[in-house]
C-alpha cells in the first residue's frame, strides 16, 4: 500500500507574522520557514503506519519554490521513502494545489493520501477536502486516530461536541488534526540518510493544470491592536473592576 503525503513549507509556527508596510502581504524576507506543523503530523502518521506494516511506501510531495526541497528533506529524514517537488514561485490557492495533487496522484496512483488539516499561513483548511472532491474519493478530515485495513480506513474525527468515527473505502483522503500523534525529531543519521533518498523535481507549469488564482488580494492589513489593561492586586479588586466595567 502506497501513501502520498503533501507537505507545505510555511513560516515557522514560533515566528510572529509581520504585515508589510505597503499592505501587499506578509514580510517573509529572512523569516524562519519550516514544515507546516499539521504536515509534520501527517508525515509522522504515514511513517508510523509503515512501521506497523500497513503501508509499504511513503511519498512526500510539496508544491512550492526551490527551497521547498528542504521541507521534503525533512520529510525524508522523518522516514518518507522518496519525494517529489512540484516547483513554482506562484503562491497557489488551495483549489490549484488540489488540482496539482490530483495530477500527481494520476501518475503515482497511491491508495491513500494523508495530509495536514490546515496550513498555518493561509489558515484555509480546504485543500484536503478539495482534493477528495476532485478525485471523487471519500474524506476523513480532522483525524485524531487512523486504522488502516486493506480496503478501508477507520477514522476518529475531532468534531464540535466530541468525536465521530467513520469508515471510508480506499482510496481516500485523510487530514490530520493535532492529536493524531506527536511528530518525531529526525535523528542525525536519518538526516544524513535523507540526503541520498530520491527527490524528483518537476515544473508545475508542465502538468497542464489550471493554476490561475480565483481570489485577488486587495490588501493585507494588521488587525486592530489590543492594548494591555491593568494589573490588579487581589481577586476582590478584579471583581470590583468587572462590576465597574458592567460585566455583572
Amino acid at each position: 500500500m502506497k501513501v502520498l503525503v503533501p507537505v507545505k513549507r510555511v513560516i515557522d509556527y514560533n515566528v510572529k507574522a509581520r504585515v508589510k508596510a505597503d499592505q501587499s502581504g506578509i514580510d517573509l524576507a529572512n523569516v524562519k520557514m519550516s514544515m507546516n506543523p499539521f504536515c509534520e503530523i501527517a508525515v509522522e502518521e504515514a511513517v508510523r503506519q509503515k512501521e506497523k506494516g500497513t503501508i509499504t511506501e511513503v511519498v512526500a510531495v510539496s508544491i512550492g519554490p526551490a527551497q521547498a526541497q528542504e521541507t521534503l528533506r525533512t520529510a525524508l529524514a522523518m522516514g518518507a521513502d522518496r519525494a517529489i517537488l512540484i516547483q513554482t514561485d506562484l503562491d497557489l490557492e488551495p483549489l490549484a494545489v488540489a488540482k496539482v495533487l490530483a495530477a500527481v496522484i494520476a501518475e503515482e496512483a497511491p491508495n491513500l493520501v494523508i495530509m495536514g488539516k490546515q496550513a498555518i499561513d493561509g489558515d484555509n483548511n480546504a485543500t484536503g477536502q478539495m482534493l477528495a472532491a476532485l478525485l471523487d474519493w471519500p474524506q476523513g478530515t480532522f483525524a485524531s486516530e487512523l486504522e488502516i485495513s486493506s480496503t478501508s480506513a477507520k477514522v476518529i474525527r475531532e468534531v464540535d461536541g466530541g468525536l465521530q468515527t467513520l469508515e471510508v473505502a480506499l482510496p481516500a483522503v485523510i487530514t490530520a488534526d493535532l492529536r493524531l500523534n506527536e511528530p518525531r525529531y529526525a535523528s542525525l543519521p536519518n538526516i544524513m540518510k535523507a540526503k541520498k533518498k530520491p527527490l524528483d523535481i518537476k515544473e508545475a507549469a508542465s502538468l497542464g493544470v489550471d493554476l490561475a488564482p480565483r481570489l485577488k488580494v486587495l490588501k493585507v492589513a494588521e488587525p486592530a491592536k489590543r492594548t494591555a489593561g491593568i494589573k490588579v492586586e487581589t481577586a476582590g479588586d478584579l471583581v470590583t473592576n468587572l462590576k465597574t466595567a458592567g460585566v455583572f
Partner: protein
Amino acid sequence: MAVLVFADHDNASLKDGTHKTVTAALALSPDVDILVAGQGAKAVADAAAKITGVRKVLLAESDSLGQGLAEAVTALVVPLMSGYDALLTPATSQGKNFSPRIAAKLDVAQISEIVEVVSASTFVRPIYAGNALETVESADSKKIITVRPTAFKAAAEGGSASVETIDAGAGAGKTHFVDQKLVKSARPELTGAKIVVSGGRAMGSAEEFQRVIEPLADKLGAAVGASRAAVDAGYAPNDYQVGQTGKVVAPELYIAVGISGAIQHLAGMKDSKIIVAINKDGDAPIFQVADFGLVADYKSAVPDLMTALNAAGV
C-alpha cells in the same frame, strides 16, 4: 443575486451561528434562503423560518445528512447551487468539512472564515493566526464562503418564511458512519457563550481542571474552554480547545487561568470584549491582551475569586 445559508444545528435545535451567518448573507443580497440538512429536523426548519429577512427554508432529510457526512451534504448542495450565487456556511467543524468539497465540485475557490463583507464579491478574512487580515476579491461566478460567526451580529427573529421539503440527494457513497461520542453538558455552548472560563497546562491533571475551572464556570454561568496544551494532556476534551485551530470565541468576558497566551491561543479569543488573565508569571504574553491581569497562583487566586464573587452577590 440569491444566497443559500447552511443552517447549523444538531437535528433538534437551531444554533445561533445560523442567525449570525444570515446577517453576513443579507450583506450580500436581500434574497436569502436557508438550507436545513439533517434527519428528524423539522423543528429546526420551523425555527429557521422565524429568522427575520429569510425568503424560504429548504428541508432535506436522510440518515447521512443527519450524521453530517461531507459526501452526502455535497451531493445535496451541488445541484442546488444552480439556483444560487453564493453559499454561506458557519465555520463549524462540520462546515469546514464539507464546504471546500462543494467549492471544488463547482470549480471555484472557497473563501474561508470571513469576518467582514465589504461587497458581494469582496471579503475580509484572518490569516496567519489572526496576525493579519486579508481583503480578497473573488472572480468566481459562485461564492462558496465559510463565515466566522463571532464576527457578525445575530439576525433577529420575527419572520415567517415558508418551509419546503426537498429531495435528500445521492447520499454518502463510500463513507460510512460508525458512531459518535458527544460530550453532554448543561453549560452554554462555547462559541455562543457570554462568559468563558478556560484552563491551561498549569492545571496539571483532569481532576484539577475539573476541581478549579468547573465551579468557577458554574458560578458565572460560563462555558468552559481550554488551551491546546490542556487538551493534548487530556485535562479537557478536544472540543474545548480555543485557538487558531480550535474554536473561536468572542464572549463578553473571557477568563484565562494558567494559560501563557501563545499566538495560536490568542487567535481564538482576542476578540473577547473583556479578557481576564490569572497567571503566576507576570511576564506571560497573555497579560499583553488582558484588560485585567492578576499575577498569582491560581490555587489561591481562583478560590479568592469565588469568595469575592459571593461577597459581591454575583
